[in-house]
């Protein structure tokens, strides 16, 4: 089920109704758990089994970890959790990719191996919930947390529908305590939650799907060689599309949880106002970058073992982060490019450690960051390296004989939306959305909320899946 579908409206109304009933807290949690399984099964019922498997294995692994005294036993329980979680991920997400690459390597070595046609279906959101369950056992292994007392609370943490399929990637310490005590939204929490859901759906259905998606598809899924303007406009449109799609989902998820009285973590903090790449990754998909930092970068040594090890850890983390997004070398290239950006920034920061940019310099560095992020997006969106090179060629003015592709109205709408998005990010970069809302005039907020809700209503139509579901 996706948030921008009619069936979700009915589903959510029923869930809210049941949550408001005078049932016991345990009954309400059972309701939420069943609702979450229905939410997941509505996409493809058999894959609920994977969710159960992931939940049960990590529950028992965590208990084993907590009871084990000897290091090797603790390590064995931790390994069981990691192997099962990563095994599921590897089979469903990377199985075909691994076999294809093996066949390619074999052919380079002179052996002809033709892999069987793959019919593996990628379970929706598997990368998100496996990371969530792994953080449970890893936190216990690293002695940062103790196991949950109740299986119901733990299962609900894994399955809670607002964050289940596309994050934010929650940690057990963030959510399980909330399930231990009764939670019910206040009237204002409910209204504010609905306002956040409106904002999220507006970003997703109107901006990402309605206005930006067709621009991106015409260039990235088309066959024409794009020129300078078309390449840049399509790539800028994608930068807006991916943000509105994913941040829109996160905001809607936070709003949905708030309507039930629960708090989810921030996942975005106006990333297109970032100055530098360290800053960007502290603002973009925060829960994933923090996960990778805590469970990959730091265990690999982080910045504690000298320069070489630091750069290695950085690059390895970003390459894994790239691969997490999809089983394709273009995603790895995207991660690698960001790793390179971060490494260069780190070197420059060391070289010019006393430098503090003024307003103009900060704005210029912010613009440079945004442009370099866009160049990296080319690898993220392009289906092949050939296509990525073709579009980059256009962006650097090499496709001089290209014919105009994008209609004038596409150029206009993309410019207005991306310009507005970047300006909004810049104006709010040092505050939260809530702080900005608190300072706004109620009449302006009412008008904005009305416009967004009305736009969602008249943009109706076939709902597209969220881009991040595939990850």
């Amino acid at each position, binding site marked *: 089920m996706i948030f921008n579908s009619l069936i979700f409206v009915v589903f959510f109304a029923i869930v809210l109704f049941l949550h408001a009933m005078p049932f016991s807290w345990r009954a309400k949690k059972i309701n939420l758990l069943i609702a979450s399984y229905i939410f997941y099964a509505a996409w493809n019922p058999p894959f609920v089994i994977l969710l159960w498997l992931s939940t049960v294995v990590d529950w028992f692994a965590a208990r084993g970890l907590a009871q084990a005294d000897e290091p090797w036993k603790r390590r064995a329980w931790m390994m069981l959790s990691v192997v099962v979680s990563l095994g599921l991920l590897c089979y469903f997400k990377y199985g075909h990719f691994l076999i294809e690459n093996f066949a390619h390597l074999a052919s380079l070595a002179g052996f002809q191996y033709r892999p069987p046609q793959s019919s593996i279906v990628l379970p929706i959101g598997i990368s998100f919930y496996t990371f969530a369950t792994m953080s449970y056992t890893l936190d216990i292994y690293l002695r940062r947390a103790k196991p949950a007392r109740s299986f119901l609370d733990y299962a609900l943490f894994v399955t809670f529908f607002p964050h289940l399929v596309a994050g934010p990637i929650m940690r057990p310490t963030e959510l399980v305590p909330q399930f231990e005590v009764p939670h019910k939204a206040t009237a204002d929490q409910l209204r504010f939650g609905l306002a956040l859901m409106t904002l999220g759906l507006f970003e997703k259905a109107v901006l990402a799907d309605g206005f930006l998606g067709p621009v991106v598809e015409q260039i990235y899924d088309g066959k024409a060689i794009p020129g300078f303007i078309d390449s840049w406009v399509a790539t800028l449109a994608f930068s807006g599309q991916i943000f509105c799609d994913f941040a829109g989902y996160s905001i809607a998820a936070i709003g949905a949880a708030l309507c039930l009285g629960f708090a989810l973590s921030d996942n975005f903090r106006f990333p297109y106002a970032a100055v530098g790449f360290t800053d960007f990754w502290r603002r973009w998909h925060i829960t994933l970058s923090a996960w990778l930092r805590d469970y990959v970068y730091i265990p690999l040594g982080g910045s504690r073992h000298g320069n070489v090890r630091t750069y290695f850890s950085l690059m390895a983390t970003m390459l894994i982060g790239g691969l997490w997004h999809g089983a394709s070398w273009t995603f790895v290239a995207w991660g690698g490019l960001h790793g390179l950006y971060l490494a260069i920034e780190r070197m420059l920061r060391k070289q010019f450690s006393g430098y503090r940019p003024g307003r103009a310099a900060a704005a210029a560095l912010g613009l440079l960051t945004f442009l370099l992020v866009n160049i990296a997006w080319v690898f993220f969106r392009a289906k092949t390296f050939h296509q990525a090179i073709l579009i980059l060629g256009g962006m650097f003015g090499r496709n001089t004989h290209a014919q*105009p592709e994008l209609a004038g109205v596409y150029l206009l709408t993309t410019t207005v939306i991306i310009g507005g998005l970047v300006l909004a990010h810049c104006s709010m970069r040092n505050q939260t959305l809530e702080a900005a809302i608190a300072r706004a005039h109620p009449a302006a907020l009412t008008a904005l909320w009305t416009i967004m809700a009305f736009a969602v209503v008249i*943009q*109706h*139509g076939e709902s597209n899946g969220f881009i991040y579901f595939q990850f």
Partner: protein
Amino acid sequence: MASSISSSEEIVHDTRHAVPSGLRLTAADRPGMAQPVPERDIPQQPWRGMALAVTVLVLLLTSLWEWKMRTLELVPGDLGGSFDRWAELRRQVDKHNVPVVILGDSRILFDSDLDRATQLIGVRPLQLAIAGGSGLPVLEDIADDPHFHGLAIVGMAETAYFDLQLAGARPEKAIALSRWESPSKRGSFLIHRVLSHGLAMLDDDYKLSTLVFRLDHNWRPGASDRRNAIWKGEETGADGQTWLWRRLEHDRRLSEHMHNVWLHFFPSQPLDGQTISAVLVRTKVAVDKIRAHGGDVVFVRPSSAPDLRAIEDKHVPRARAWDAILAYAHSNGVHIDDLPAAQNLTLPEASHLSRACATVFTDAYLRNLAGKTPLLHLQPGAPPALSTRNCVRPSLGGLH
């Protein structure tokens, strides 16, 4: 000390003192530690009044929008070219004994009057034609379905039927959906159908972004012009009945726009012989399979205006396509050129018939086919034949 997952124990990492005003810490600010329960403050605003005002305003604006859409002749209950609806119809073949199905492109889709067909042959054909789609993939799909033992009437605009690069993708997508549709998608469609009975505005061709994109008046010369796209061609009713959108019958601006789209849309370069041969072979295989199940296949070639027909004949000439397919598949059919009762019908936008003329055309082609296949009979008491006189012309005047 380890932070506990349980709230009843100590929670560490309270670092709120480090946060500047208007900000809050995120996971990015807390490396290498258990993350605490997130904080979500509710901004101080009169939320009750705002929510009430938004509800009233959105209802008001939506009502005005609905009124505006109805003035544009959008009608409640029109599901457009919904693949979900098509998939639902297609699954009927697996569940019931369906005696007659209609396959093909928008011509046979808009130009077939299912009520008239029911009056003539005693059963209501299942309409499985897809606008912008070739009939071949659906014919193959039906041929592979052991449940089907009936008659397939395949409508053929040669360009759509033979040029699968142009018209193959939509049927494939629809077939895939008929084989697997997630409960979520199915549920959303059922709700959409209920809503669409009351709301005309739920039309995919008139959603916000589409309307904005249509404002482009060739603003960027040389680029693909969004106005040169199909705005809205079809109008669906209950039981799979689809017509040419009623407004196209009298709105000269819209019908001329569609006429121009067709003239630009149809390729005029001759289709290569290899592609035509491949389609002939695939068609024969499908026809043979259906006959092996006890069914049969007949073909129908609906009309198009002379200027469009000239382009179509250049791309796929009758002799290489229509005549060849009947001969190769040993099938019967009726071509508009050979159907005197359906000449000079009204084609408001050059490619599809007006409603009244669709009834006349349906009457003509079914009467003609009734003698050509054992699976199609005119029922006793069938109404008398119609003629061009029954095809009332709209005030616009058609493009003959």
